[in-house]
């Protein structure tokens, strides 16, 4: 849409008209003067000479009056029309809820009212269309979200990359395995190390490029040879030096062209540790057993081959044999204990609250038999390691046998802590169950009503490293028990809860399906479309407004925009110790007090991480010259220079909405229908600025500004661009 008359062009037009009027009037005057007789000229000159002051005064009043009239015309008729055009663009492009409120001539106000009426209908129509689109897209969206959920909840890390190694999809597990040390739970003064996992980022920032290249080379060779299995498997080091198995699988297009690759990451460090432990255990046991048996054998053969041994020697050799049998037994006991304690991980057991396990069993017993065992939960902090389903079913089987085969009375469950186990006692009043009955139950397949597993009770107990037996308690006359030991979980091991997933609204955005079909990236950013570029929108909180005067950064917040989407799950937020006092005036604005910053890293530690975070993106901010100045002041100290191209939302707003009075963050947000959450926090302002920027892009496009170069040139034309730090 072509720009309407601007203020400067209006005054240029007015000046031109006045000049033209002056020239015409001057010319007419000269012509008349020329035709006047000399006497009339003399008379007029005399009159003018006598009343020169009055004439000048009249002239000034005339000019002032004229200026006021023209300005009044401009403010009532020209400026409102210009604003109407800008507001219409906002309503119909980015914010259908915006309504025009202006002061101007009656005609302009009538036009504004008419436009607002049309905007009401447009907003209603927009809503209706969006509802229809949402309905139509719900199923596809649900399927997309289901795939996203499956990928997100996989125990393996998954990364999908384009041929250039840019990440287009990843899940949380991949982030855990690859990212630099997490801040959550770690020392906050310890800055993050290592690369970032995020959409659009290079996978080579977090994985050794040579390893991936080697795998891709192997895959290419396999493709050339026509082999069916195109995957390549390798071992790489992830976060905290943990070992991962990395499977590289190519993604092929319809023509079997290489369109990307998938990395499936499995943490094998624990598995390797277990295997190493088993090996060590075995070796140690072998050596000890060999030594003991050797001594025994030597002694026995001496006794056998030398029947006339003197008594003392005979006795000594007998002693050796006995001592070595004890040594062998001790070695085997030690190996068995070590194995059970640390190595027996053949069956995957999970941590679970003991009370949850037993309450679940009681509930199912009530559902199946209308007979709920009495159970009073103990401490809620008791945890066990069990395969929940098989153990629950095995215990229900035992309860079933007790109630229906042995016909015992009401059952009671109680627990008792025994070192590395919890003893579960199933008690009743009546005769005890015989050991052979228990053995028979152990050999039976676990089945309760229509629930069954292909394991015997003994199998389930073995995989938990436990036993069941008839137990007696002191002082319990007439009371009988069966005792089952349940392996206790280490109370110091923190429990990681997986994030709960809600469909479809709360699924975090981890992927974009469109990037695979995009054209290759080109290095010339200036001629790239604004909609295609990657951005880091950031904001800083500071000790004051004077970068050159010693004011320092105390908080950095940033969020990335990829493919027109703000990636809220890939934010950067860090408090910074400014190593100086924080004036109360600045605390009143951002609320960050000095004690909060104690122990935080200083700018020399934070800036390199932020630089890495923003690598390869366009920097965007509101009144960003101030922030860039602060960063520039730290170049010498940190050695970090931000050479990224920069865009300022304040300048862009001033360019698009030149007729608007205010271009501060709140005014623009209100105009564009954006709510800023966390105002005057670095991350809150960064995210608000990002939303604003996303809405400014289509407004720029409507004015023919589509590339980065065009946006920068347009920004430079505004008044605000003259304000420098």
């Amino acid at each position, binding site marked *: 849409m072509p720009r309407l008359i601007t203020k400067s062009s209006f005054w240029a037009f007015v000046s031109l008209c006045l000049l033209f009027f002056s020239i015409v009037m001057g010319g007419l005057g000269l012509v008349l003067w020329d035709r006047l007789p000399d006497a009339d000229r003399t008379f007029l000159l005399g009159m003018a000479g006598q009343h020169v002051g009055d004439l000048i005064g009249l002239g000034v009043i005339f000019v002032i009056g004229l200026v006021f009239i023209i300005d009044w015309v401009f403010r009532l008729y020209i400026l409102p029309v210009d604003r109407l055009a800008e507001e219409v663009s906002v309503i119909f492009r980015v914010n259908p809820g915006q309504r025009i409120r202006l002061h101007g001539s009656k005609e302009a106000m009538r036009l504004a009212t008419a436009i607002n009426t049309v905007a009401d209908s447009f907003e209603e129509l927009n809503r209706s269309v969006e509802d229809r689109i949402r309905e139509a897209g719900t199923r596809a969206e649900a399927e997309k979200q289901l795939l996203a959920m499956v990928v997100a909840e996989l125990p393996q890390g998954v990364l999908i990359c384009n041929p250039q190694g840019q990440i287009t999809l990843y899940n949380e597990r991949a982030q855990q395995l690859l990212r630099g040390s997490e801040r959550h739970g770690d020392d906050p003064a310890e800055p993050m190390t290592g690369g970032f996992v995020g959409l659009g980022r290079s996978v080579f920032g977090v994985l050794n490029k040579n390893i991936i290249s080697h795998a891709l080379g192997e895959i290419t060779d396999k493709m050339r040879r026509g082999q069916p299995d195109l995957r390549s498997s390798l071992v790489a080091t992830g976060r905290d030096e943990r070992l991962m198995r990395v499977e590289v699988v190519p993604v092929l297009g319809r023509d079997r062209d290489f369109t990307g690759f998938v990395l499936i990451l499995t943490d094998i460090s624990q598995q390797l540790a277990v295997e190493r432990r088993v090996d060590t255990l075995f070796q140690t046991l072998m050596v000890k057993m*060999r030594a003991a048996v*050797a*001594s*025994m054998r*030597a*002694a026995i053969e001496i006794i056998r081959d030398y029947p006339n041994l003197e008594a003392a020697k005979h006795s000594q050799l007998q002693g050796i044999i006995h001592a070595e049998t004890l040594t062998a037994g001790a070695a085997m006991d030690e190996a068995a204990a070590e194995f059970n304690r640390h190595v027996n991980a053949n069956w995957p057991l999970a941590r679970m609250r003991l009370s949850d396990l037993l309450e679940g069993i009681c509930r199912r017993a009530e559902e199946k038999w209308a007979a709920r065992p009495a159970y009073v939960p103990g401490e809620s902090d008791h945890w066990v390691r069990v395969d929940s389903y098989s153990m629950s079913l095995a215990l229900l089987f035992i309860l079933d046998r007790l109630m229906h085969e042995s016909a015992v009375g009401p059952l009671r469950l109680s627990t008792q802590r025994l070192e590395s186990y919890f003893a579960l006692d199933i008690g009743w009043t009546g005769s005890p169950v015989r050991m052979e009955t228990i053995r028979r139950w152990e050999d039976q397949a676990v089945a309760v009503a229509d629930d069954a597993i292909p394991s015997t009770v003994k199998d389930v107990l073995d995989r938990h490293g436990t036993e069941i037996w008839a137990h007696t308690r002191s002082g319990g006359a007439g009371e009988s028990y069966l005792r089952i030991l349940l392996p206790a979980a280490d109370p110091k091991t923190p429990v990681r809860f997986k994030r709960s997933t809600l469909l479809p609204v709360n699924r975090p955005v981890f992927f974009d399906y469109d990037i695979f079909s995009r054209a290759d990236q080109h290095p010339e950013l200036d001629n790239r479309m604004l909609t295609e570029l990657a951005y880091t929108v950031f904001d800083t909180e500071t000790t004051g407004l004077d970068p050159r005067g010693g004011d320092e950064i105390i908080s950095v917040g940033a969020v990335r925009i990829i493919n027109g989407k703000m990636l809220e799950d890939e934010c950067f937020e860090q408090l910074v110790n400014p190593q100086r006092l924080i004036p109360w005036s600045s605390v009143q604005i951002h609320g960050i007090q000095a004690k909060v910053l104690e122990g935080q890293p200083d700018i020399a530690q934070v800036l390199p991480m932020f630089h890495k975070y923003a690598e390869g993106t366009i920097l965007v901010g509101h009144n960003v010259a101030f922030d860039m100045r602060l960063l520039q002041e730290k170049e010498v100290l940190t050695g970090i220079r931000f050479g990224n191209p920069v865009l300022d939302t304040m300048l862009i707003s001033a360019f698009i909405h030149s007729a608007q009075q205010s271009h501060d963050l709140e005014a623009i947000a209100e105009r564009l229908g954006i709510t800023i959450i966390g105002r005057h926090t670095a991350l809150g302002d960064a995210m608000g600025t990002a939303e604003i920027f996303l809405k400014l892009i289509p407004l720029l496009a409507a004015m023919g500004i589509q590339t980065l170069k065009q946006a920068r040139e347009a920004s430079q034309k505004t008044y605000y661009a003259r304000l420098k730090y």
Partner: protein
Amino acid sequence: MSKKVLIVDDEPSIIVALQFLMEQNGYETLVAFSGEEAMETIARQHPDLILLDIMLPVVDGFEVCQRVRENPEWKDIRIVLVTALGSEANAAKGLALGADAYITKPFANADLVAKVKELLACPA
């Protein structure tokens, strides 16, 4: 003069048995319970044959074997490694380091005695 056999092992039980065996077969026996003690005894007594365990504290049997073979004055000393380490790699290493024989525990007494007699009968 009877040949001297040095028995090196940190397990007293096996030393008792081996010492008896060697003495019953006419050999003079010396005993060491560690690699360091073995080296001192070798330097002092110059045994004809060493029954050498590998799993010794601090200086293990492999190192003792290597040190003995590095000293030209001791090249006539025979070394029999008697050990609980039973893998092929261990045996290959022991023989490569200069042991004359590698016997895995547990062993038959008669086999051990036969090997000792064989080695002491032949010149080094």
